[in-house]
């Protein structure tokens, strides 16, 4: 076992006149110390968090209260994709920014599924914009723009998921905007059309 052996063993004879003192053992039992050592290792191993939490950086657009509405630059309808987040992690989306009062946008519903979800729609939109750039319908400065409008029934995880999709699909221009009553109405209509719930 783990012991220190400091006793002088054998050899070395004492002179005839020297009294032989009582020999004390100098062996120390190290077992408890080792036990304690392992106990502490176990403790620290359990408490250590090796992975630090990750963060996602988000930049909100600078809002100048003095900026007039007519001064704000308009997003082209052809590059925009509007995504509405609703309850039960449902995602509604439509092409364009939906500002035409005469023609209601056609809302489609999807989910955050890895395949055939919102990701495929974003990829398709990006491809469409790229094609339009190539054919000269759009200038090189135009970028796919995604407008994210979470409604009151959506959760924080929906927001993070959609922001994550922006990173995953390399969408450089996106914005989180308040949902309008009109769009809230669209969601209701679509829900009613698809048989409630």
């Amino acid at each position, binding site marked *: *076992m*783990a012991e220190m052996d400091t006793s002088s063993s054998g050899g070395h004879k004492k002179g005839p006149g020297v009294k032989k003192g009582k020999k004390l053992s100098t062996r120390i039992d*190290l077992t408890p110390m*080792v036990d304690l*050592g*392992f106990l*502490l*290792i176990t403790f*620290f*191993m359990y*408490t*250590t*968090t*090796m*992975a*630090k*939490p*990750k*963060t*996602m*950086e*988000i*930049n*909100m*657009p*600078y*809002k100048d209260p003095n900026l007039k509405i007519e001064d704000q630059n308009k997003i082209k309808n052809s590059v925009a994709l509007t995504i509405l*987040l609703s309850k039960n992690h449902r995602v509604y989306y439509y092409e364009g920014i939906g500002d035409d009062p005469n023609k209601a946008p056609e809302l489609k519903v999807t989910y955050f599924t*890895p395949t055939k979800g919102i*990701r495929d729609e974003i*990829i398709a939109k*990006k491809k469409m914009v790229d094609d339009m750039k190539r054919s000269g319908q759009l200038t090189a400065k135009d970028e796919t723009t995604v407008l994210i409008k*979470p*409604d*009151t*029934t*959506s*959760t*924080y*995880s*929906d*927001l*993070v*998921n959609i*922001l*994550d999709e922006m*990173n*995953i*699909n*390399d969408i450089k221009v996106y914005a*989180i905007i*308040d949902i309008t009553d009109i769009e809230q109405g669209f969601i209701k209509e679509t829900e009613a059309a698809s048989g409630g719930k």
Partner: protein
Amino acid sequence: MTAMCDVAFLLLTFFMLATKFKPDEPVIVKTPSSISEIPLPDVDIMLLTVDPKGRIFFAIDNKLMRKSLIEDINYQRDLKLTDAEKTAFAIDASIGIPFSQLKSYLALPPEQQKTMEVNAPGIPTDTSVTSPQNELASWIKSARTVNPKLRICIKADGQASYPMVKKIIKTLEGWKIFKFNLITDLKAIPSGTAAYADAHSGDKKTK
């Protein structure tokens, strides 16, 4: 045997040095996951925790900063806190109590503070910074006065409803803070996407 002991103690030393104790968290929050790999900074962070019920808890990381923060809050909101209560605030990790109950909360012994925190209503907030009900706005303002370098991190539960998070974002925007961090778990980048191609295009392009 000796060799094994040596290794064991080496490991012990390693874990002791590598361990950083987690600060006490008022509520258990399960953050959603994202592909972002930016690590959370160690110092100068302001943590806004949102639990599934939408209660907001506020925390900053430095004890000395907390002391100056409570001095400032005490002065701004005229809470008439005693020195002992201020010290209690400096020791406490996070706060989720409205100003009206803050004095009575800080006067309690630490164990009772914990039980009170479990049932705490959270810090009241609103979409406008100028509203007197928006206590979170006061906390953020005072904390930024005390330490202008603070980075703001929002740690919200995936189940937390969006309007609550929106209130925080609006409050931050009201103070002209447009850049902040959302704390998330890490998940793998799905293959076949732009981010995946970017990550696997070699080391020459580091973004």
